[in-house]
């Protein structure tokens, strides 16, 4: 099983542990990830607010490179990258925009590669395999936090229920965990303000952590590097907004699956978190 792989900047920087766990889990499930050659920035955070052509050309180049490599399916673990690639693919169904972008790129672009996130990868190619390979059931009560970019806008992504997504919950239950029915699954963590207004980030992320803590979560499960860094790295600032400081770890879905598959904390990058992970 060979799947294209677009890590994006976060996975090579602040969320190396996400990269490590994705690669480790894929290996354990016999999925061969083929990194896109000479990949570039997807343009998230800045481009799509500033310049439409740039915001479409950057992801289009990534997909054009994938097409060149003959990758019919590309997994994009970062929720922001996933969102940008999917939205671009959708926008470029418009003939005028597509010809303009092809003109800018000076390379062919079909829009034929299927862009999937990590949850879809695991669902489609791992489900049976995972069940068979569980060595240490993930027997924890956790809150699955999806954030915004993974499920919205539904009309384009067409992935999961938009207000109450279920795919991570299903995955966690499959590896032996229990999941919370809670209200903050898709609430904003404040990532859009993570540079300019860190006070708001602390408040918004604090709301999320508080609800999870009140309902007895042992950990938060995420599939987005922005969510993870806000909830984990900014814990000090968050805890100042909370009545009771929280030490709930925030781990990636691939780390949780990896643990169930018997992979070591080292392999899964669990030592890299700010809030200590003891699961």
């Amino acid at each position: 099983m060979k799947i294209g792989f677009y890590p994006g900047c976060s996975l090579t920087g602040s969320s190396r542990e996400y990269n490590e766990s994705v690669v480790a889990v894929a290996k354990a499930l016999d999925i061969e990830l083929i990194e896109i050659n000479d990949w570039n920035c997807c343009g998230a955070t800045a481009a799509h607010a500033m310049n439409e052509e740039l915001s479409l050309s950057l992801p289009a180049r990534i997909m054009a490179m994938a097409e060149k490599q003959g990758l019919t399916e590309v997994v994009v673990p970062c929720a922001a990258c996933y969102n940008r690639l999917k939205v671009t693919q959708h926008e470029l169904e418009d003939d005028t925009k597509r010809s303009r972008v092809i003109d800018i790129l000076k390379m062919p672009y079909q829009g034929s590669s299927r862009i999937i996130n990590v949850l879809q990868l695991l669902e489609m190619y791992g489900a049976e395999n995972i069940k068979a390979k569980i060595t240490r059931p993930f027997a924890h009560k956790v809150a699955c936090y999806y954030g915004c970019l993974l499920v919205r806008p539904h009309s384009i992504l067409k992935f999961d229920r938009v207000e109450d997504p279920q795919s991570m919950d299903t995955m966690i239950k499959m590896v032996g965990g229990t999941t919370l029915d809670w209200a903050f699954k898709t609430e904003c963590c404040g990532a859009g303000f993570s540079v300019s207004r860190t006070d708001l980030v602390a408040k918004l992320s604090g709301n999320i952590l508080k609800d999870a803590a009140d309902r007895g979560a042992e950990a938060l499960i995420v599939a987005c590097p922005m969510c993870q860094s806000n909830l984990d790295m900014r814990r000090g600032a968050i805890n100042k907004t909370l009545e009771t400081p929280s030490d709930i770890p925030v781990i990636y879905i691939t780390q949780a699956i990896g643990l169930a598959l018997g992979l070591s904390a080292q392999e899964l990058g669990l030592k890299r978190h700010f809030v200590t992970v003891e699961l």
Partner: protein
Amino acid sequence: MSKIGVFICHCGENISATVDVERVAREIGGMEGVAHAIDYKYMCSDPGQTFIKEAVKKYGLDGVVVGACSPRMHEPTFRRACAEAGLNPYLCEMANLREHCSWVHEKSEETTEKAIDLVKMLVEKVKKNKPLDSIKVPVTKKALVIGGGIAGIQASLDIANTGHKVILVERDPSIGGHMSQLSETFPTLDCSQCILTPRMVEVAQHPNIKLYTYAELESLEGFIGNFKAKIRLKAKSVNYSTCTGCGACIQKCPVKKIPSEFNAGLGTRTAIYVPFPQAVPNKPVIDRVNCNYYKRGACKICEKTCQVGSIEWDKEDEIITEEVGAVVLATGFDVKGTDFFPEYGYGQYKDVLTGLQFERLASASGPTFGEIRRPSDGAVPKKIVFIACAGSRDPAKGIPYCSKICCMYTAKHAMLYQHKVHDGESTVFYMDIRAGGKNYEEFVRRAIEEDTVNYVRGRVARVYEKNGKLIVKGVDTLLGGEQVEIEADMVVLATAGVANCGSEQLAQKLHVSYDPYHFFAEAHPKLKPVETNTAGIYLAGACQAPKDIPETVGMASGAAVKVAALFSNDELVREPVVAVVNRLAPPLYSTCVGCFMCETACPYNAIEHEEIKGRDGSLIRNSARVNQGLCQGCGTCVAFCRSKSIDIQGYTNEQVYAEVMSLLND
């Protein structure tokens, strides 16, 4: 050569603003066979019609083309004018210059040229038109009313009171509909049951009304004045001629936990049940899906309890046929359930209710006997939040329209709550308050001013449960977009009114049109609001679009008058758009060779076999003949006929080919 008169209408400026009407009249005037062509500001007005009548006489016209609006609008008007001037009405045709031309194109040369083409087509068609005689058909003076809510009840009573027979069919075991579920009604706070139940009884006792409850329309055939309705009488499993309605069986039924439809799921009922105490008829039916006997083959406690032996276990659905002359559709509406709202918990929070459920809580006959109590723990809610436009006016939810009744009933709910829970606090989140109607705005003001209901203009983003409270997160757009968070004990969603389930299938059975939301379509949005596009079928109430009680009752009376007017004739005049098989002089008799392909095409069994016999009585050949009473004029047989022996009056091959040839023959 033909002498055709052409009359081009400006329709005020509706046509003349984009079409050069003078040029149209001028160019058409030069066409071969056109004797007279003029344009005028309002052709449908009295002076306009007089122009036509005078021209028919003065020029001895043998055909008229009016270039104006859609023939669906004014064809009868102009045909009548021609008839009054002594011209056969079927020699008059309309070219649609408004809906199909001036309204859909910008002012330009091309638009005028298209208008000329459209008129030209009809001129060529009219040249081939033949004088036709209307067909007279008898009228069955009995009406079928489908749906026994307030709309159906009102329509039935009004028709019955004109002395005509009515058959009222209701799907549920009792008539009464949604109105019977309501507690009090806006803007008077009349008790709904008190004003409705006397009418329900009147229906049951009226000598002209035959009531079939627990019954559904199976099929409808025929046409205006002459419908044949097949009605499925669902097996009630109780013999109503012997049942006294004592209710002992209901007391003893061991299956008690079925969610009650009447109480919108908040209360329970038994398997043998009467939907509510004031039901008409007040006799039970057995719900076979939930009954122990039908499920497992044992129980029969009701049979042992019944002193008159009315339980009929083996009773099967029965299908009866009724002949009727008109049909009134009054099948009402439904409301979206709370599970339609992911942001409000997909229906998983017990204390998030629909407006209809709140009606049952507030109703004296409801599961709490009129006390407002939480379904989860029975506590009286101290803080309550009403969310208006739950689903309505939300294109993302697929319901872009306004459900119309929610603003008013939400004000009523808040008012009722404040009257019942004196120390309670109620908040209404709204988009706009739409209180158009007599005394409606005053009613809403009363809720706000006298009953101190807190109205917040803004949407609610999310409702979630925490520590037994429902956290309502919304925004107050009048206070600079401030976020509002309320810890409520109960949340009531004014969920959108939608078409009743099965309305699409019913529309297809009746061949009436419906809109994208499956509400039945009226024939004209302004001038024919109770008619459908199918003659003889009328609409009453919320099956056409959400509407409140006064409007529903008014519409039902309107439909009843239409039916009464229809029944005031012994014979109906039908358009002669029917198929005919050609007849020729002997020795040919007809080009029909009797292959009867037309018979396989006809959906109405209107094709008959005719034996053509010689003078000596010997059979010359079998030939097809059309029964004009049955033929509805679809013309499918015409396309099937291999020898071109059958044709349809008003749309003959000659006529339609002439239209096509005129268009392209330049």
